């Protein structure tokens, strides 16, 4: 804990010089990661890190609507699908190999359009939140998300069951982002920028409005917050994250999309990330995404023989851990860390005030 506190102090000191300083340092520290991994371990880990970055984007985005604004959505994976498929279809060559629709746009054009389209879709997914809350909203968004998947699954122009294949990778001039390492810089940058903006949103007036809505919708509206506007804004913001993550996923080599990457199971995994990390906590989403991605990777060949049948136990473990997390650790890892930090800051501040004698507080 002392060690953690030291680092936190250091980061605070850096941030007091310039807001972006800790972020820049973090970015620089993350730059050599692929080389460390491929030199000392193996290059597969870079691929793992890439996928973790995509999930970080998704989880952080989901946190905006779920954690900041308190709106229950189970349709996030549908937005991810929309971002992925839109960008893929826009960038595929017309009449190309897969037999799907194609417009042949450059990747750097198709990604922003995909984000815009997803943002608009987010607005639509958010519309039910104007009238509905809690379980009703969950059902409506679940329905919307599943409809997106089924629509992709049965529409040949969007890949249907064969999937969209040979989606081009992004390139600058003759440099193509088609290796683990080059793609790492793309997704890592996106993830870090995503986390940074998530903090900016949280600290801004918009973020405070979100939190007011989460705590008490009626009180928020009485206090002059345009509840409908901010609810929709939360959905749109989270959709932008999902759209970006989706588009980056689509162009990630080998550039293949299939509707079964967007099922409810994926949505549940995403929920697990957010819950494990701690709902409403930005770093929680990040930690959750990393932990779950690594845990998933490490447990995927875990097979138990039961009555002479090989059984993959991983999904069972995932499901149960979700239930138990909600029951016994509802604030997740991030909530726990936040508690530690808050205590530390509180003690520090009271020490300053009381001249060295910290008083016990009642939480």
């Amino acid at each position, binding site marked *: 804990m002392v060690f953690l506190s030291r680092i936190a102090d250091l980061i605070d000191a850096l941030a007091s010089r310039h807001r972006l300083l800790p972020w820049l340092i973090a970015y620089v520290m993350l730059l050599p990661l692929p080389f460390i*991994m491929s030199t000392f371990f193996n290059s597969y880990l870079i691929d793992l890190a890439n*996928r973790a970055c995509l999930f970080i984007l998704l989880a952080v985005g989901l946190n905006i609507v779920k954690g900041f604004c308190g709106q229950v959505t189970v349709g996030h994976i549908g937005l991810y699908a929309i971002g992925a498929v839109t960008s893929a279809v826009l960038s595929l060559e017309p009449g190309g190999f897969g037999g799907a629709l194609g417009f042949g746009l450059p990747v750097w054009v198709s990604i922003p359009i995909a984000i815009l389209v997803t943002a608009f879709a987010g607005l639509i997914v958010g519309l039910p939140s104007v009238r509905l809350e809690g379980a009703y909203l969950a059902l409506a968004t679940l329905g919307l998300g599943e409809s997106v998947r089924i629509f992709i699954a049965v529409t040949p122009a969007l890949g249907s069951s064969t999937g969209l294949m040979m989606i081009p990778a992004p390139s600058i001039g003759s440099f193509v982002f088609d290796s683990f390492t080059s793609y790492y810089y793309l997704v890592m940058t996106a993830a870090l920028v995503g986390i940074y903006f998530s903090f900016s949103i949280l600290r801004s007036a918009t973020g405070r409005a979100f939190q007011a809505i989460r705590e008490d919708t009626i009180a928020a509206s009485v206090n002059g917050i345009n509840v409908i506007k901010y609810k929709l804004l939360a959905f749109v913001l989270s959709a932008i994250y999902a759209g970006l993550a989706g588009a980056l996923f689509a162009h990630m080599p080998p550039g293949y999309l299939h509707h079964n990457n967007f099922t409810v199971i994926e949505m549940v995994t995403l929920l697990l990330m957010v819950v494990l990390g701690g709902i409403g906590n930005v770093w929680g989403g990040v930690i959750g995404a990393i932990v779950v991605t690594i845990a998933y990777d490490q447990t995927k060949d875990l097979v138990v023989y039961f009555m002479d049948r090989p059984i993959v136990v991983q999904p069972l473990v995932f499901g149960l851990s979700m239930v138990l997390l909600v029951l016994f650790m509802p604030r997740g890892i991030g909530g726990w860390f936040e508690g530690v930090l808050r205590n530390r800051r509180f003690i520090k501040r009271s020490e300053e005030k009381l001249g060295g004698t910290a008083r016990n507080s009642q939480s």
Partner: protein
Amino acid sequence: MKLMNKVFAGLVATGVGLATTAAFAGDIRVGITMRMVSENGQAYGQMVMDEIKAINDAGGINGNMIKATLMNDECKSDKGVANANKLIFQENIHLLIGSTCSSVSLPIVDVTAKAGVPQMIPHSTNAKITQKGSEWVFRIPVSGRYYGGVNAKYVGENIGSKIAYICAADAASVGDCANMEKQMRARFGVDPAYRADVQEKEVDFRSHMQKIKSMNVDGILVAALAETMARALIQSYEAGIGEDVRRIGSSSASNAPVPKIAGDAAKGVFFTAAYAAADNRPIAKLFNEMTRKRYGIHAPDHDFSQAYDLVRIMEIALNNADLQLEQWSLKQDRTAIRDAIASVEGYEGLASGPISFCAAPTPQCRDGNRTAVLIGYTKGGENFETEVLARVTMEPDFGLE
């Protein structure tokens, strides 16, 4: 709160620590990615592992052991790709086997092509897998492009041309449907009398059957995964469509759940496959007996036979390849294995016809088996029975544009 950066790094480091495995020299490393959570995956995966173990027990390949790693991809492309990456870049495999599902094999073809790892496909039939032009891919089963032709030829010549199509939305069935439709048009100039595109896991076909009943068709093609097909077959009888209307199955009709679930409704259904359990050859009889004893399978379907053939072809290729199996020779060994598989010619195993590969990265070279066998169910239920109706060998470039 920014201390989380550190936590981030720490967690990644932990993951890295867990993930490192030393690469052993002297082993032939084979990676397998399959759908383990399904009626197919479990038993096939087990059989591949058992067969490899048998090779090792008998002394291995020229004294070298095969180290096989089996991973589950849940028939999901992103997970399949992650598995392939992990096997190739972390386990440093020499050869990749997989996957069961076309939608997973399709992206993995690109992964293996780029990494330069030979890939053997156990039962994905989608024609596009070999059309991508990868030098590294070899398909054991009969490509989907042949199925349509065999089905269409038999149906047009023996049954009639007024056919109703029920096509489920999974990759294999969509392909089977489209291929047959194309061939019926090309050979006999007929369009489908009725065509219904249904969902992958549709459970209620009654309204389609009701319409088909009033049309007096000669036959119904039910292209769907096993359980879905079985339901459609049952419901076709419930709707009152008589036995004189022949039911044609897609390639998944060979899977045991079809006769098991459909029961009496499976009788008379015929389909194209790469292996017939009713085959009279001694090797087939031995194989049937082996699967029954080991895995409690009443009669193995062609997915079983293909997995078995795959291991045998792999054994032949590995025996012929000049392998160094040192840390430095990985790339060279992979190429040697690829060339050894490409030079397999006229392998006669369980498959309906001889399997031959060649060096060119074209579908003609890499779709090994070109002989499909037409099978009919003579009895449904748990202890179903089949008969061989015909055996058709196609031209290497049949079905290519």
